[in-house]
Each structure stands twice: as structure tokens, then as C-alpha cells.
């Protein structure tokens, strides 16, 4: 790194010494708007290609000095079309600005550059700050959900601060499929530190031609995030944005009450040939019992305060923001709380006419308290759904009660929440400093040094408690007590450094040939250190005293651990854009990536791409006036996924393979290599072809974009199982393949010509994905452990989607013994009231060979739609989002335990011939295995959700000007107000747990809250 830094630094300074200066004269004029002929107060006038600029005054007048007669003046005014005029020798230039709603001239940030939207030949989707503003969102990924075709965002949990799953054009790999996030040019691992209010735009590079410039890291798509800065020559602004709100559960499940529970239990006993429990002899006496969902769900506050200061002079601009955000969880309240403070300073300044320096620096502190969630074993939610309603929350003496019936996992969830203390505190600085040098008219050189540094501390405390009625005997089950407290801490230090140098050449030949050439290098070094320890038997049982040093036990009870990882990436890249007469677009990119993560035999990867576009509407033959813009695009490219682990190519002799020796049972270290090495290990490759069409009708009122793509993954890393006779684990190898095909459409209509403005838009993505190969001898991968069925619900195999549900097919309920005997043999204990499973292979026996694919957790269609109306400052906007064609495996009931509570659908169970053909009878021992993995638990997970609904009012600026306020807005926003779905669980939006092979299994997911906020936004 040091050598690299030094050499590139020297290069930078040499290059900086080129620069050219010229002569100048002054231009004045007045800017007005059309229609209306109002002064365009605050419109910006700049000299194209320089930083010189000014703003129009209250009468729309401006004065600017231009460097020479060939200077082009650019007039910009929000909501109006940009006007460019060559000044010539004129001293006065008056301008009429025409209202514009076209996005064609919008400048889009692309990999290592920027392009006008109309010139782009790849596939890029954009989310703008106005889509993000005034919504109760915590993370940047939430801003992407439903907003862009082809980008599927799934909330993995509704708990504050939990991550989201973002998939660009489907899942290309069974391994890490997260896109690459680039914030202001810096690749960041996890964008959780970003304050969504700081974001100006998010551009998602979807096709390989757009993302291939990111080479070995671009395979899962690239999300380019630009944080808010300020334009030059903009008057200083101070904004305060705040909202407060309350969140609550959107719905609770309908479970049995105590009386119903007792009835069902009694029946289950009788069915198993046993005597019912005496305490359930009179169910009515038990009444309603405990509603455990009510006990754990709570109303929770959410709030945000943001201060934004921006301003720009002719030679500098800055943006300074500060934010405090706080959200509690609807389960656990402050035990699931997220607090964040962010401070950001983005600025830039012309040090010399040819040299601009700048910085984008953000500091984030956040603290997250987390509960166990999304596990079928011991999360508070799954416990609340399963614990019997007979047990009270508390005993008569006020202490928490435990269930006499529940077994092992299903403990008192209210107590479990109270005993949870898991705190993560993170301090993170992500920042870059850069210098931009103009080298003559056509070259520019930019050198950027970036750093992403996280210091985080995790502290977990397991207090001592015992729910026993008789503390001396301590009769409570193991899950309801902990006899020794324990504290565990972890310190994390993650560091990413990047040095990047980019040389850009732009030129226009004969007014028709626009060329941009970009070349650069980047060196990235990542180092992660972590250490931690644990200790037990602390004298205080209070979280605030829970530190390793505070113990009464000898030092020997402490344990400690430490890890360290380092990786480096060294890359060269080049890009060329050619535009002929705004009509023919050509682009090519190339990247070479050397990575320390790749095995010795494959140290470098090479990633090319090509794209072309044809703006039909600029062609001579074009005569359709209604279609003001039409562009055909095609692209092809290749890129890679390097998230393969830092040292996967090598084999590590793992210590900790311990054994116990000696009279005092001393744990003694053992070491062995658990898998073999693979020096051929390399990146996963994705090759993608895309064709697209962009249309703009009626001067921008209607915009349409359509894309079709084929995305093929090869060299997918997969530890293809090797025969167990090897005795060691399979090395991971680049053997598997997959394919995604899809269509993405987006269409919007906007009308802002009259005082009544309205817009409506939508996007929809269709996707089909399947695994096409698992290597030679590659066996299907089974995943998704379902404890209640003692099996796995998901299967990944060639010719099928990832992690598709696999199991038995139900065929109604046996109504009589005759039906049992007539059907294929299921089990010795099968009786009327049990489920009949289909004998798919017709061999007269129901066994593992009668399993088949019973569902697909990946949506076939995902979509989003927005609508907005505005009249005299009153805005009403709505945003819908949803999926279609995905299945959910309902794993919320622990059928492996005889005493758990059930959904009230069990009240419609079979009780005799003709009573039910869907809900089996209840039985304590379930000899027929009615709870086996079958389509009984596969539910349609499609949903449409009113993600947000906002009503806002902006006070007329005429009133506000008197009190020196530019803008004052009040609003109410509702989030997740309505959800239309057939799924009966807490939330149909079921994300990914851990890896891509745990899809769509509802393990009692922490649901997303229904939130209502009231907010205010003031700009001075």
C-alpha cells in the first residue's frame, strides 16, 4: 500500500502542473419564466465547463463574467428546462425559462463518471431524495424498496436497525448476493451507517455493461449513492426537518384461548389413547387465559431530527448536516431500540483555477439493542405464539411464571425479553478527500483517498434468574432459569482504505462526435480485527455493571478470543463513451482485478463490457411527434463476485478440536485441517445481456422504460459434497451455474401544467431464475431446517429455483377407516382424521420418494406504484409495493411439542366423517406425521402493501417571505397502513436469514410496524 500510495501521489502532482488560463468580459440580463413571465428568482447561471456562476436576484437579474467569446452560458432553474446560450460578444442576454418535466437531461452518476440520462446505453435506475424524504425509514435500503424495477428489497425483520435483503435482478448465486454499495466513490460493506436524509440520489447499475467497470465486485449489481452537497453559487440555506411518530403491530394472530386450548389438549390425549390432564377437565373454568401476543407487542415511538446547512460561492460550496434518529421496537420496546447520531460535512473548494479539492466525510454513532429474532427455537415472538394460554404471565407474587406444559424451547417470552441485554455500539467514519485537476481543456485528473473505519463494541449480558416456585429446589425447566450470570464482550475494528486515480479525457470533434475516455487505478486494503472475552458469576446482576472485570470468580473463568483478516484488491480500469450526433451511442469498459482472495493460480480476473444505443427519435426518418424521445439499447458484459471469504483458497489447521484429559477434566487443544485447499479458487462470474427501450411522450409527461435481460452465473462457489470417506470437508470450488431471466417495465405520467398537479407511476419486474448446474456429482442442497417436522423444507437442485420448497402433497383428510385402508400405506398408526398424502410414485407406500416441489419462495413478480396530487401546496401521495407468485412456508407452530398453542384454525379440525377435509384431527403423538413437511404449510405469500401515504401542506411562499422563511411544510405520513394478502401470519414480507438458501420460511418473523408520523420541514 505504501509504495502504491507514494507512486500514485507523485503521478498526481506531476499531472497537476498542467493548466491553461484565458481572457474575459461581463454579461448581464434578466431571467423570466414561461408561462407567467415571473422573475426566476434564484435561477443559476454558470459558464459551462467552469465553476464560475451566479444567481438571479429578486427581479430575475444577473451579472456574470465570462472567460472568452466562446463561452457557453448555462441557465438552470428547478422544474424548468436547462437553457444553453453561446455568449459570443453580447453584453446582454435575457432568457425565458420553459417548464420542463423531462428527466433526459438529468445527469446520472455512473461508474467512475457521469452521463446525461439520454446518452446512457446501459440499464440504470434512479431513486431521488424526494422519494426518501419525510418517511420513517432508518436505512438506505428501505428507500429502494418498490422504487425501481429489477431491484427487490425485502425487510428481513421489523426490528429497528435490522438489515434488508437487496437483490438486483434476482439471486445470481447461492453465496453472498448483496450488491456493491459505493458511497461517494467509496465501496462500503454495509450502508447501515448512512442517514437516509443525507442522500441526494441512489443509482442502481443493473446490467453488466454498467456495472462491469466494478469488475470482480459488480456481479450482484452496484448501488451508487451520492450524498447531499450544495451547488456552487447557491445562497445559504438552513433546514430543520423533524418527525415524531408511533408504531404498532399491524395485526396479531388468532390463537386459541385457554378454554379452547384445553378442549384441543383433551382431544389430543384421547386420540393418543391417554387420559386427559385433570386440570383441563372443565375447559370453561379456564376462561380466556393469557394473550401472549398482547403481552409482548407494544406501541413504540420513532423520531428524527435533521439540521441541514448548505451554501455555495463561486469557488466553494459545502453541506453540513446533523441528524438524530431514534426508534424502539414493537416487540421489546427499548430492548430492541436503535439510536443514531450522524454528522456529515461535504465540501469543495477551488484552490487554483485548475485545482479543486473536496471532502465527503460522515461520522456515525449508533447503538442497537437486539432481541433474538427470526429463529424457530427461542425468539420472543415464536415463544409467544407457542406458549400455552393457560400459564399466566406472572405468579401471584408478581414474579414471572413458567409453563408447566412447555418443553425445552418454549419459555415465558416476557421474561425472556426482560433477561435480554445485547447491545451493539458502533462508531464509524466513512470519508474521502479528493483533488480534481483540470489538465488543459480536455483532460481532468482526480485522485481520491477514502477510508471507512468502524470501531464497534458488543456487550451481551445473561443475567441470573430463576422462575422456580421453590427457589431452593429450583424446579423450573432449564429454559426458565440461569443459575450463573455471564457477560460477553466483543471489540470490532474494521478498516478499509482506498486510493483511486482517474484520468478523464473529453472532446467533441466536428460538433457531432462526443468522446469520453476514462482510465484509472484503484488499490484497496481491508483489515478486520476483533477480540473479545467472557466472564461469569458477576456479583451484580445489573446490565450496567456487566463488565468482564467485575467478577468474584478467579481469573480462570474468563475466556477470550481474537481474530484478524486482511484482504487487498488492486485494479486497473478503462472506459470509453462515444456519442454521434446525440443519436448513436457506444460504450465499452474493461477492468482487471487482482485480489488476495483468489487462489495463486487465478490471481487476476478480467472483465469486459460493451453497450450501444440508438436514439430513434433523432433519426431523420422519425416523424412521430407525440414520442419526443425514443432510444433502443443493447449491452453485454461480464463481471465477478469476490465475496468468497478472505482465505478460502487455503486450508487452515483449525485448533479447538479439543478433548478432555486428566483427573480434573482439562480441555486440551487438538488441531487438524478440516478441509482441503483449492489454489484454483477464483471469483464467481456473471455474464449478462440486456436489451432495453426508453420512451418519452408528450415532452416528458409520459416516460417508459423497458428491459429484458439474461443473466448467467458461472463459476459459482459451491462446496460440492465429496464422499464422506475423505474424512474432511469438501474444498469450495467454482463449479455451479445459475440463470436469471427477466423483464422490467416502468411507466409514469406527470402533469404539472396547471395549479392542479398530479402524477402516477409504476414499475414491475418479472423474473425467472433457476440453478442450471451444481458441478459433477453435485448433489442437491437441502436447507431450511424445520424443527417441528424434523426435516428440511427447501431444496436447491438443477432445473429449479433456489431453495424451492420440497415435501409431501396433501390429498384431503381420511374420513373413515375404509379410506385409510384403501389408500397407500402411510404409517401403522394412521387413522381417520389424519391427512392423506399423495402416492406420487404409485408404489402403495408413502415414503421419501413421494416428495416433490411444493412451492417457490422467490416472487415471480415484484412491483411498486406511486400516485401524487398537489393543489395549492397541499400534497397527497401514496406508494404501493408488493410481490406476486411467491410462497411462504409457515413454520410458526412447534408441532414437535405436544403442548404448544395452535392457530384458531384448529377449531375447524376433523372430528368425524364429513367435518373437515383440510384440518386434521389432533393427536398427542401424531403417528401419521401430519406435521411433516408438506404443502399444508405452504401458503401464498403474495401481497400488496400501502407502503406509505402522506398528506402534506406547504405554506404559500408569499406569506413566508415576510418572516424570512423559504419553505414551511407540515405533513402526516403513514407507513404500512394497509396490507392486502392471503397470508395469515404476522407479516407476509419474509426475508432471507443468513444465506440465500433460507428463503420465505416464516419462523415467527419480527413484523414490520404500522407507523404514523407527524413531521415538519422548515427552510430558512
Amino acid at each position: 500500500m505504501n509504495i502504491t500510495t507514494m507512486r500514485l501521489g507523485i503521478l498526481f502532482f506531476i499531472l497537476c502542473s498542467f493548466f491553461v488560463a484565458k481572457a474575459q468580459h461581463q454579461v448581464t440580463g434578466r431571467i423570466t419564466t414561461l408561462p407567467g413571465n415571473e422573475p426566476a428568482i434564484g435561477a443559476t447561471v454558470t459558464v459551462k465547463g467552469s465553476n464560475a456562476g451566479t444567481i438571479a436576484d429578486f427581479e430575475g437579474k444577473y451579472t456574470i463574467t465570462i472567460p472568452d467569446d466562446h463561452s457557453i452560458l448555462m441557465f438552470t432553474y428547478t422544474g424548468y428546462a436547462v437553457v444553453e446560450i453561446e455568449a459570443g460578444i453580447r453584453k446582454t442576454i435575457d432568457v425565458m425559462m420553459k417548464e420542463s418535466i423531462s428527466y433526459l437531461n438529468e445527469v446520472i452518476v455512473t461508474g467512475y463518471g457521469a452521463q446525461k440520462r439520454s446518452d446512457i446505453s446501459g440499464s440504470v435506475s434512479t431513486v431521488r431524495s424526494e422519494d426518501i424524504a419525510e418517511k420513517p425509514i432508518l436505512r438506505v435500503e428501505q428507500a429502494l424498496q418498490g422504487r425501481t424495477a429489477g431491484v427487490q428489497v425485502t425487510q428481513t425483520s421489523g426490528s429497528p436497525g435490522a438489515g434488508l435483503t437487496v437483490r438486483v435482478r434476482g439471486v445470481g448465486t447461492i453465496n453472498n448476493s448483496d450488491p456493491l454499495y459505493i458511497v461517494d466513490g467509496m465501496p462500503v460493506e454495509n450502508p447501515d451507517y448512512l442517514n437516509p436524509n443525507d442522500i441526494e440520489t441512489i443509482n442502481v447499475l443493473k446490467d453488466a455493461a454498467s456495472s462491469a467497470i466494478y469488475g470482480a465486485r459488480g456481479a450482484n449489481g452496484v448501488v451508487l449513492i451520492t450524498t447531499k452537497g450544495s451547488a456552487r453559487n447557491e445562497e445559504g440555506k438552513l433546514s430543520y426537518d423533524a418527525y415524531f411518530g408511533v408504531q404498532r403491530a399491524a395485526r396479531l394472530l388468532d390463537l386459541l384461548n385457554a378454554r379452547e386450548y384445553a378442549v384441543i389438549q383433551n382431544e389430543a390425549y384421547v386420540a393418543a389413547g391417554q387420559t386427559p390432564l385433570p386440570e383441563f377437565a372443565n375447559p370453561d373454568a379456564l376462561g380466556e387465559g393469557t394473550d401472549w401476543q398482547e403481552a409482548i407487542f407494544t406501541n413504540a415511538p420513532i423520531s428524527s431530527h435533521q439540521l441541514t446547512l448548505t451554501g455555495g460561492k463561486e469557488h466553494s460550496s459545502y453541506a453540513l448536516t446533523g441528524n438524530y434518529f431514534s426508534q424502539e421496537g414493537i416487540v421489546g420496546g427499548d430492548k430492541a431500540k436503535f439510536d443514531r447520531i450522524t454528522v456529515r460535512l461535504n465540501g469543495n473548494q477551488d484552490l487554483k483555477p485548475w485545482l479543486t479539492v473536496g471532502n465527503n466525510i460522515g461520522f456515525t454513532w449508533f447503538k442497537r439493542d437486539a432481541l433474538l429474532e427470526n429463529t424457530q427455537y427461542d425468539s420472543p415472538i415464536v415463544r409467544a405464539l407457542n406458549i400455552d394460554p393457560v400459564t399466566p404471565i406472572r405468579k401471584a407474587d408478581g414474579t414471572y411464571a413458567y409453563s408447566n406444559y412447555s418443553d425445552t424451547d418454549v419459555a415465558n417470552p416476557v421474561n425472556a425479553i426482560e433477561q435480554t441485554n445485547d447491545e451493539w455500539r458502533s462508531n464509524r467514519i466513512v470519508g474521502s478527500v479528493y483533488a480534481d485537476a483540470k489538465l488543459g481543456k480536455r483532460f481532468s485528473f482526480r485522485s481520491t483517498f477514502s477510508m471507512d473505519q468502524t470501531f464497534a463494541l458488543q456487550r451481551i449480558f445473561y443475567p441470573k434468574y430463576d422462575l422456580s416456585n421453590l427457589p431452593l429446589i429450583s424446579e423450573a425447566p432449564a429454559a426458565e432459569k440461569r443459575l450463573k450470570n455471564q457477560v460477553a464482550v466483543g471489540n470490532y475494528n474494521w478498516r478499509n482504505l482506498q486510493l483511486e486515480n482517474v484520468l478523464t479525457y473529453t472532446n467533441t470533434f466536428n460538433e457531432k462526435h462526443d468522446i469520453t475516455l476514462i482510465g484509472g487505478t484503484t488499490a484497496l486494503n481491508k483489515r478486520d480485527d476483533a477480540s473479545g472475552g467472557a466472564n461469569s458469576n458477576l456479583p451484580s446482576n445489573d446490565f450496567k455493571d456487566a463488565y468482564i472485570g467485575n467478577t468474584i470468580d478467579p481469573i480462570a473463568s474468563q475466556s477470550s478470543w481474537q481474530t484478524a483478516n486482511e484482504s487487498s484488491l488492486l485494479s486497473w480500469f478503462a472506459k470509453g463513451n462515444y456519442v454521434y450526433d446525440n443519436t448513436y451511442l457506444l460504450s465499452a469498459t474493461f477492468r482487471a482485478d487482482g485480489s488476495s482472495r483468489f487462489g495463486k493460480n487465478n490471481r487476476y480476473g478480467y472483465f469486459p463490457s460493451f453497450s450501444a444505443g440508438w436514439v430513434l427519435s433523432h433519426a431523420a426518418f422519425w416523424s412521430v411527434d407525440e414520442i419526443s424521445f425514443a432510444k433502443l439499447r443493447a449491452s453485454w458484459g461480464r463481471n465477478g463476485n469476490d465475496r468468497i471469504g478472505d482465505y478460502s483458497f487455503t486450508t487452515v489447521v483449525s485448533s479447538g478440536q479439543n478433548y478432555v484429559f486428566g483427573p480434573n477434566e482439562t480441555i486440551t487443544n487438538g488441531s487438524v485441517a478440516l478441509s482441503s485447499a483449492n489454489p484454483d479458487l477464483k471469483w464467481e462470474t456473471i455474464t449478462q445481456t440486456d436489451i432495453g427501450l426508453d420512451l418519452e411522450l408528450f415532452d416528458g409527461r409520459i416516460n417508459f422504460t423497458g428491459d429484458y435481460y439474461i443473466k448467467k452465473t458461472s463459476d459459482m462457489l459451491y462446496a460440492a459434497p465429496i464422499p464422506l470417506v475423505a474424512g474432511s470437508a469438501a474444498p469450495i470450488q467454482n463449479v455451479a451455474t445459475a440463470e436469471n431471466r427477466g423483464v422490467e417495465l416502468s411507466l409514469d405520467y406527470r402533469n404539472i401544467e396547471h395549479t392542479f398537479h398530479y402524477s402516477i407511476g409504476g414499475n414491475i419486474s418479472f423474473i425467472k431464475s433457476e440453478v442450471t448446474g451444481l458441478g459433477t456429482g453435485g448433489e442437491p442442497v437441502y436447507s431450511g431446517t424445520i424443527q417441528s417436522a424434523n426435516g428440511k423444507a427447501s431444496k436447491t437442485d438443477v432445473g429449479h429455483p433456489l431453495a424451492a420448497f420440497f415435501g409431501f402433497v396433501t390429498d384431503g383428510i381420511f374420513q373413515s377407516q375404509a379410506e385409510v385402508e384403501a389408500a397407500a400405506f402411510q404409517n401403522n398408526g394412521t387413522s381417520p382424521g389424519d391427512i392423506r398424502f399423495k402416492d406420487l410414485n404409485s408404489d402403495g407406500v408413502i415414503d421419501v420418494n413421494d416428495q416433490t416441489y411444493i412451492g417457490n419462495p422467490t416472487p415471480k413478480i415484484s412491483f411498486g406504484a406511486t400516485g401524487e396530487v398537489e393543489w395549492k401546496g397541499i400534497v397527497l401521495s401514496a406508494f404501493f409495493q408488493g410481490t406476486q407468485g411467491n410462497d411462504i412456508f409457515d413454520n410458526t407452530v412447534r408441532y414437535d411439542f405436544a403442548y404448544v398453542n395452535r392457530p384458531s384454525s384448529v377449531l375447524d379440525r376433523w372430528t368425524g366423517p364429513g367435518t373437515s377435509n383440510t384440518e386434521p384431527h389432533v393427536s398427542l403423538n401424531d403417528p401419521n406425521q401430519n406435521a411433516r413437511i408438506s404443502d399444508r404449510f405452504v401458503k401464498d405469500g403474495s401481497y400488496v402493501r400501502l407502503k406509505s401515504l402522506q398528506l402534506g401542506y406547504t405554506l404559500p411562499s408569499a406569506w413566508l417571505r415576510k418572516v424570512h422563511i423559504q419553505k414551511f411544510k407540515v405533513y402526516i405520513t403513514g407507513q404500512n397502513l394497509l396490507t392486502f394478502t392471503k397470508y395469515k401470519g404476522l407479516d407476509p414480507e419474509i426475508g432471507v436469514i443468513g444465506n440465500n438458501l433460507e428463503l420465505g420460511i416464516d419462523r415467527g418473523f419480527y413484523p414490520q410496524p404500522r407507523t404514523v408520523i407527524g413531521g415538519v420541514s422548515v427552510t430558512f
Partner: protein
Amino acid sequence: MKKIIYILLVPVVILISSCEKDFLDKAPIVGTTEGNFYRTGDDAMAAVNAAYASLQFQLSPEGHFRWFWGDVMSDDTNKGGSGDNDANALLKLETFQGPTNTGLLESEWGADYEGIYRANVVLEKVPPIQMDEKLKTRILGEARFIRAWNFYQLVTMFGGVPKADHVLAPSEYNMARSSADEIWDLIESDLITAANDMWKRSEYPSADLGRVTRGSAQALLVKAYLWREKWAEAKSMAEEVINSGEYQLVPDYADIFPLYGENNEESIFEIQYMNASGGNWGKNNSNEGSFTNVFTRARGLFAGYGFNIPTQDFIDEFFKEGFEDPRLKSTVFRVGDEMGDRGTFTIEATGGVPYPYYSKKTFDNKSETAPFGDPNPNGGTNDRVIRYADVLLMHAEASYHAGDENGARTSLNLVRVRAQVPEITASGDALLQAIYRERRLELGLEAHRFFDLVRTHRAAQVLGPLGFADGVHNLFPIPQSQIQATNGALSQNPGY
């Protein structure tokens, strides 16, 4: 402009040529690679300890407890659990409707070969290490024992299996099965070498308590000889153990199985577990606790899963001499018994699961469980694999077949006297049957029964009513997944 291009190119070329290698070559910072390990005596010890660690495997990833195969498959116990669905595959195997693709058998197969791999690594990597030669020889002996033990489990369960007597290269993964005789030959030769190379139990420092010893190898060799019906060899090898003076019967049978009875003077080969905290479910590579405790404890108040439930037939065996054999009360819990410090055994207290008996030999008190963390995988009870009483009974059996009925009776009666039951005076077949019966009583619930029945050709007679078909269920099926993974290089056992 050309200048700029040159200026840009020069450092790029320098970059490529000079610093790229340092920048991109990254080896693991924490931990060691095979390249820099196996250099010292400590490394050799760590290598053989990792092989020992494989002995502890019980769920890797699915259950393959020794008592699954030795007890549940036999007439001594039933599967138990919360119902038929709880480990249903085990029920299928137990009732001899054996599926060929259960994770249970696959896990057993995988765990055995993982142990063999780890032992093979020791046998390949340790010899070149410069270290104390005496210790090195012993370590190699221990590795051979562990390899032999894993092959012993494989051959008794599956018959002939792939003979992985070295660390396999990927090209060898599709190795076909060797004959059972070839595997037995390897076991015998490994154990003979191991018995020679390892030290006597009394020669090990006390910190090494729990390691396998010369006596362990000799005792396992006796077992191997019995399987092959090499009576004379079995008899003389058993006498080597008996005459070594290293082992003796514990005076009171009841003192063998509690925690304080671990590694006592009767212990010859015992898999070590402790109630270490923090272990996890799943492939328990780094876990020092046993899952047997929680699996075999009663449910409900006793916080177990209630597996390995003794049958009435097994209980009845203890009453066949007209009195209750005193060993019964150390072997099972009956309704009304105190289950240690966990409470009184009633059907209600077990959560209503109607099992009248539970295994007592693997019971642990609440006070003995892991102090914090998940106590479930952290049972501390050692697995008594070979006890001196077993060697005496094997000696009796071998002596009988070798024509020495007196020797047979002497050894048999040593066991009976300790158990405080009358001595046997029978001869001929009645003596042999008495020896067989004594094994059931003395070694009950210690995972011997099913294999004893198969080994002595009595399985069809005893287990036939339960579905056992001779010539089929003497062996378990080769895991179907392994036949597939090797593209059919492995053949299936007959009848499956």
C-alpha cells in the same frame, strides 16, 4: 498529450512489477496452515488430540449415538422420545424397515471416516517430526487405535467398507468397498502395533488420564478376535489384559456409572466428556459435552428427551433367577425411583409420556450439568466403551469355545460375585448361554446387545419377531447418499 500518457504508464508498469506481489499475497493471520504446522512435539500432540476429539462425535450432524445401534436396535430398549415422529428414522431402523438414506447412518459413516482421516493425518505427519521418540511412538500407537476403533465401528455396522488407510487424494474418493476380512485384517494389525507402541495404563502421567492405553488396544483386539471367532487368540489376548494387573473390578457395581466412577480401575476404554459450557448443537467438533445425558433423561421435570427406553423384556431378564438381580437398580429407573436430585419419577412428572423405565447408566444430576450456557449438549457422563467386566466375559466366551470350561466359569463368576449373585456351575451349552445372559445383565444399556446378538448368530432368533431378517439386518445399509456421491462405486448391502 503524449507526455501525460507516458507519465501515467511509467508508474503503472512499476506498480505491476514491484509491489503487486506483496500487496496481493495474504495468508491467514490467525491460525496455521498445513505448511507451517507439524513441526514440534506439541504439534504432534495437538494432531492426535484432534483424532481423539472425533471419538466424541454424536451428532454430526444427525444423531449416531453408540446406544442407537447397540441398544435401540436390540430387544433391550425402544427408541422412546416424544412420539413416533421424534427421530422417526430411528424407529424405522429399529423395526427393521430400515430406510437406506437416513442422516443417522450417514452421520455415523461420516464421523467414523472423519476419525480415520484425523488418525491418518497423524500417521503421515508425525513420523518426520523431531521430538521425544518414546512419546512419538506412543502418539502413533494412539492414532492407530483410533483408526482401528473407527474401522471396528464401520465393519460391525456395514461389513466391508472402503479401506482408507491413508489420507485420500481427491482421485481416490470413489474408492470401492474392501471385503470385511480385509478391514478386519487392518484392524488387527493396527491394534497389534498399537498395543506394542502404547504404554501401559500405569505408565501414563495422571494428566493423560483418558488416553487409550496398551490395555485398550488389547481389549479391542479381543473383541475383534471374537467377531472373527479366533477363539484361541481371543483367549490369550484377554489373558494378557487380565494378567497385566492393570485392571480390576470395582467392588460395588453401583459405583461404576456415577460421575465419580469415571476412569476407575475397571475402565479400559472410555470416551471422555465433561460438562463444559457453551457447546452448540450440530457438528460438535469443538464440544466437550455429551448429548447422551439429555437424550436419555426423561422429559418434563427431568428436562430430557426420553430416548432409549428399556423394554419389559429387558427388565424381566433381571428377575429370571427368582430374585431381583441387584444390578437392575443401577441400570434403570422405575416409577417411584428418585431420579438423582431432579425429583421423583412419576409418569406425570415426565410430561405424561407413558414410559415406565428410563436408562440410569447415563443419568446426570442437575447439580452436575453445565453451570451456564446451554446445558443440553453439555452432559458430562463418559461413555464406558470397554470395561474390565467385558474383558472377563469375553475371556469366558473365548475360553468356552477354546475348550476351557473351567477358565470360562472362573471369569464369568468373577463378574457374578462382584454383582452379588450366585456363581454358575453349569457346563456345556448351558454355560455358554449363561455367559451370553451375563453379558445382557452386566453390560445392559452399554451399547453391546445388538452387536452381541449378531456376532453370536442369535439375532434372527431373538429379534426375528421384531422384523429382523437374517442375512439382511446383520448389517446396516450403506448410506444411499454415499453410493450416489461415489457414482455407484460403493455397492449396497444385500437385501436393501
